[in-house]
């Protein structure tokens, strides 16, 4: 392996204070991706858009799960972008045993795989199910809830890009209020998706009292991997909800995926937390709080809020800010993080 000194740039990994996965860190802190001996569960050459957060999130989550499972992993996939861009026949990007059945049944199919492994005495084989927010929070929700309720031995990962991207950016129950999608178009004073409470599946998952629930974002891949590791150290039903910006659906620049994922967390709209058996066990404090506007402005799906003549835009922005503030209060996100306490 070539020596990499601090002055050298690390190929395809970010460097700097918010560094992820790079080889500048001491080995214990490096991500799975920084290792050349990682499993490479999803090979390159797939057809995701440039800057796709879902491709990135899936790669990190699956490789971390592979390492945690000692490569004894089976993946089940719901229909959606991830499935389509990784398996253009006759090719496949998956280097793990992988099964796609339907849009709404990944949780149940995974439960079946887990049952088969149990009955065959192959407890070492672990099962990971995955889907987009549509396949998880909408059409697959019944199967997901059933999987939680039975406490099937499956880690379910939801890649939340906040809409149905594979079919051309339509609203899902995870689409944020006011966002423009193909089925919540902006017209006169109708500002995209209406305000509602949406469907907060991490909290609903917690209500099932399953062993582990967590949220993560592709801006903090160390954190994402740590959560996959924690999840994989447990048995039973586990749920991980990952925010994965989608340049196509969000109308954002390909190079802004990580920045937007970070801003979503830092403005408070996407709180990062972990819960075990229905109780919150950890939340990730915000390092540098930003107003929601900073997160919303670079995205074309919110462009109507920033037109000078936009009706109700001020009120809409205030309501979104209030949602972020509520999260910050609820999860106490502005308390000092442990590492900052030490230097304070």
């Amino acid at each position, binding site marked *: 392996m070539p020596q990499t000194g601090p002055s050298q740039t690390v190929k395809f990994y970010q460097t700097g204070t918010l560094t992820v996965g790079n080889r500048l860190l001491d080995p214990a802190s490096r991500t799975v991706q920084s290792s050349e001996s990682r499993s490479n569960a999803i090979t390159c050459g797939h057809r995701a858009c440039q800057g796709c957060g879902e491709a990135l999130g899936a790669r990190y989550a699956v490789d971390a799960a592979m390492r945690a499972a000692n490569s004894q992993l*089976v993946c089940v996939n719901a229909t959606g972008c991830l499935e389509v861009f990784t398996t253009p026949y006759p090719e*496949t990007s998956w280097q793990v045993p992988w099964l796609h059945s339907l849009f709404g049944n990944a949780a149940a199919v995974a439960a079946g795989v887990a049952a088969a*492994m149990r009955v*065959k005495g192959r407890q070492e084989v672990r099962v990971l199910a995955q889907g987009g927010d549509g396949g998880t929070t909408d059409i697959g929700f019944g*199967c997901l809830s*059933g999987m939680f309720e*039975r406490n099937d031995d499956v880690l379910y990962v939801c890649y939340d890009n906040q809409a149905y991207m594979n079919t051309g950016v339509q609203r899902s129950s995870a689409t944020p209020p006011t966002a423009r999608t193909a089925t919540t178009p902006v017209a006169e004073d109708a500002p995209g998706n209406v305000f509602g409470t949406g469907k907060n599946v991490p909290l609903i998952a917690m209500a099932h009292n399953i062993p582990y629930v967590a949220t993560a974002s592709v801006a903090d891949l160390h954190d994402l991997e740590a959560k996959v590791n924690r999840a994989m150290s447990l048995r039973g039903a586990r749920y991980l909800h990952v925010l994965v910006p989608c340049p196509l659906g969000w109308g954002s620049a390909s190079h802004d995926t990580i920045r937007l994922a970070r801003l979503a967390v830092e403005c408070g709209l996407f709180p990062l937390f972990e819960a075990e058996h229905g109780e919150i066990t950890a939340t990730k404090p915000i390092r540098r709080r930003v107003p929601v506007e900073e997160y919303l402005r670079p995205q074309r799906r919110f462009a109507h809020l920033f037109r000078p003549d936009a009706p109700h835009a001020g009120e809409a922005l205030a309501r979104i800010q209030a949602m972020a503030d509520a999260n910050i209060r609820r999860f106490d996100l502005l308390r000092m993080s442990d590492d900052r306490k030490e230097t304070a």
Partner: protein
Amino acid sequence: MLKQIEGSRAMAEAIALCRPEVICAYPITPQTHIVEGLAELVRDGRLTGCEYLNVESEFAALSVAIGSSAAGARTYTATSSQGLLFMMEAVYNASGLGLPIVMTLGNRAIGAPINIWNDHSDAMAVRDAGWIMLFAETNQEAVDLHIQAFRLAEELSCPVMVNVDGFILTHAVERVDVPEQIQVDTFLPPFEPVQVLDPRDPVSIGAMVGPEAFTEVRYLAHHKQMLALDAIPRIAAEFKGVFGRESGGLLRGYRMEDADTVVVAMGSVMGTIKDTIDEMRDQGHAVGALHIGSFRPFPLEEVRSALLPAKRVVVLEKNLAIGMGGVLASHVRMALRGHGNRVHTLVAGLGGRPITRASLSRFLAVVEQEPHNTLHFLDLNTEVVEAEIARMAQTRRSGPIAENVLRRMGAGGLL
């Protein structure tokens, strides 16, 4: 072992003897006793090495089955009617993925109006889904077909549906020879999947396929069913070798020798038909019957050669292809195309209406004289339908049809 036993219980015991490794189902009448029986066998330890999953819907039930079968476990499920439709998307998926799942379908009508009784509407709704579809005539055959179904499914890597008439078979207590474990073990080798999810040899299953290969994939599914035309009789013959009785097969004739009129049907109604034929034979009518045991694959050639000598064919349908006639009759017409046989569609027994020997023989006697092809509804209450049609024509807001029909029948004492 000979037992006086409920059909569902006998089927549950036979399925258990096949050593399924994952069972996952959702209750619906008239399938319930089968899955309850299996739950009991798993719970009390008589069926070991089996995971029994309780799920939240039929869609989940078949989805779990898809996962477990793809992971290499012998997998069983069962449903009926609305349940089959609720799992419909997964029904196509299971066959598309080539997964050898065995499913019992306790045949039942589909609503609205809701009706729990037997007909074949549910099976006909999935006739083109790519499953092998077998129909049982008796409870003995229902038991035997399940054992053959696992062989067939695993040999061809294709799901198999065993159709059993709801209530008429599932709930009937009669004499059944429930096989011994040793016999089943001789007949049914352990499941060796052709494609399996295993980290030791990773494969992708269920990839996206475009126009460049979809036709070929579909062709191969069809080819598999054509192979089943050979496999079904071969497996039935092997079954006879081990268990000592004839059961299953593609089709079975009854008193077909020099029959001018042949009644074609599927499932338990054959009992009534055979009795009717015996009576009519005694009265000098040249009548016979043909049971279609394998509806998918449909044995076109065999049906043609069995029916060619007959002057007329009456296809007794326990389904209605609304706006068309009957599903089975259209298949029989296809088998006989280019030949002079008259084919009558007789829609009977919808939603559990009894099919009586009297009505059937009356119809057969008329058909011997009748020169035209017809679509006939056995025992249709024409008075009621005509009155309802007239009322609907007169009243714009004519209200709910089923409820009006019921009221009229109740008021007039017509039924």
